């Protein structure tokens, strides 16, 4: 589904990603871990097409197409979803209105007819249950005055609505208490299928207790320095990132 090869990216002349290679197949869940400043969020943003990040080298192939040539909205319409670490507020625009606009643009892109109000509402009610989100929240201005947990649940609600092929969760666990974490993880797990894939970007192992990854990669200084299975995450939790850093230092 996704094939990243030797990806280099920078922001304002400052290199952040220094040659990332990663292949994600349908049905897989990959966790990207790493200390602060290692480039985790940059990777997520670059895949989503954030303008500030310039790709200087490498390629990204998504569903057989060159992802880097696509605009952010094209990527989204082709099924790339980013759950934001800091979802923005849009005053005066309800989540419902926002989702209706988004879903219908995606549907038109796919050559499908826009959903009418009744069908949309039906779909919405169904997806609301998944993340235990209340309709009153969805009637409010998008993310305005939402608690941290509400924002993250709203992100997963949107993910459920848009049914992406490739979901990238950027630090979705940050700022969540254990109950909220459980709800969010439940939503993500319910959406897992053999046809879609998930990249979970996280600093802590905790989230991976709930969303169990098939592969774990450790990002450090803009490169994947270690890959493994779930055990790698547990090892990291026990030994800390210094272990990786020290390991790398001796290797050199």
């Amino acid at each position, binding site marked *: 589904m996704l094939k990243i090869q030797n990806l280099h990216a920078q922001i304002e002349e400052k290199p952040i990603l220094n040659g990332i290679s990663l292949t994600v197949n349908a049905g897989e869940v990959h966790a990207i871990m790493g200390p602060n400043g290692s480039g985790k969020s940059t990777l997520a943003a670059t895949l*989503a*097409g*954030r*303008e500030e990040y310039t790709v200087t080298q490498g390629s990204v192939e998504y569903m057989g197409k060159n992802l880097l040539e696509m*605009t*952010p*909205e094209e*990527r*989204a*319409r082709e099924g790339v*979803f*980013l759950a*934001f670490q800091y*979802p*923005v507020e*849009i*005053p*005066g*625009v309800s989540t419902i*209105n*926002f*989702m209706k*606009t*988004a*879903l219908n*643009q*995606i549907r038109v*892109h796919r050559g499908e007819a826009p959903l009418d109000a009744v069908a949309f509402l039906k779909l919405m009610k169904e997806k609301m249950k998944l993340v235990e989100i209340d309709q009153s929240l969805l009637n409010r*201005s998008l993310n305005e005055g939402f608690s941290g947990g509400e924002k993250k649940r709203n992100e997963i609600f*949107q993910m459920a609505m*848009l049914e992406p092929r490739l979901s990238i969760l950027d630090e979705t666990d940050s700022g969540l208490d254990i109950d909220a974490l459980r709800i969010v993880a439940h939503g993500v797990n319910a959406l897992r299928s053999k046809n879609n894939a998930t990249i979970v970007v996280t600093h802590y192992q905790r989230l991976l207790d709930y969303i169990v990854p098939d592969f774990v990669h450790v990002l450090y200084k803009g490169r994947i320095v270690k890959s493994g299975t779930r055990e790698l995450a547990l090892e990291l939790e026990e030994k800390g990132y210094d272990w990786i850093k020290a390991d790398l230092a001796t290797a050199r």
Partner: protein
Amino acid sequence: MAKDDHIIQEFTSREYEHGWVSDLEADAAPKGLSEDIVRFISRRKSEPEWLLEWRLKAYRHWTTMVEPKWPNVTYPAINYQDIIYYSAPKQKASPTSLDEIDPELLKTFEKLGISLTEQKRLSGIAVDAVLDSVSVATTFKEKLGELGIIFCSFSEAVREHPDLIKKYLGSVVPATDNYFAALNSAVFSDGSFCYIPAGVRCPMELSTYFRINAAKTGQFERTLIVADEGSYVSYLEGCTAPMRDENQLHAAVVEIYAMKNAEVKYSTVQNWYPGNKDGVGGIYNFVTKRGLCAGDHAKISWTQVETGSAITWKYPSCVLKGDYSVGEFYSVAVTNNYQQADTGTKMIHLGKNTKSRIVSKGISAGKSQNSYRGQVHVHKRAVQSRNFSQCDSLLLGDQCGAHTFPYIDVENSSSRVEHEATTSKIGEDQIFYCQQRGIDEESAVALIVNGYAKEVLNQLPMEFAVEAQKLLALTLEGSVG
């Protein structure tokens, strides 16, 4: 950011969609302004002597006045002798049915989406169509007449209802009120008149549609709305003009007189030609709008969506004379390219327990300048009065300006006045968030701007709100910052 500039350019290169000209034969006054021109207009309209005198008095006063310089707008001096003050499409003196109206004229309004054929109209809106200096047609007159509602062109009102005109003309905006109001009083050629009898709730939206067609011509129309005790009316006003390189002057006056327990809701969607993207041409929209809550518990509510005009200079105001009377002002003013707007309101509290509410949303893009100017005056006698003002500015790009000039003075200690103001930018973050959900940039801006203006747009009647939303999106298409 380079990308933003690109988007801004894309947006700003949008063409004005009502910029075409109709080929209509016109009966026009010679260029320039003098007592003779005032007499010419009055004669063309076969006006009574008192009205001519009223005009001349206004004209003479105007000659002693100077153009106001305090608005936060700049433009080359207007040559008042280079303007045609009267232009009417040639047609039968007073058409009694639509069959007698020049088909080209009907087509002009059809093209604007204003059908003057009643059967074709959406029921629920009666229209007075004004082209250049004269009213072309008024629809649903008879149906309204059954309720005692008078809705007709100003000229017809002068002929048919002289007592009402004599009593209320200039009662809210005196002929000598200000430079442009005095000019209007001297040369106004037509407009709409509306009278709602006591206790009548007008069953449909009344609306005036203004269209400037002729070149080198100023439009000076006058609207007078009188709401008798306990009546209610909702009034809509729309306007467009062809694209021309010259600037054309539009100096209108709107007067609203609301008696005891009456309520008037006045909504405007202003879409005059704004000039091209380099700031050439466009309408100078210098308008005086004022409502008087003459009786107790009267209510006047202004809602405006200002998207057009090269320069907008207007302050729809409320004089709250009756005790417990209420004034409201809801405004969205959008400026793009080189447009300039200096707009706001005046709330003059004279009666006891009067209340006013101001919600102003400015949106600036391109190289435009957008100012909110508002006065809240609470008189000594106006005890226990309340005002709440909310003035927000939204900036798209970094080459435009937003300014706020609030004037507040309260002469008693039992009243309360609140003023809140914010300035924000459409963030790249917001745009990217929308894009990441599959929404393209233009739709994203439209979504964000409509969300921002929602509180005001919600005040508009349904049919208008949809149009206003589209217009906002169109005006701003491309201007992301």
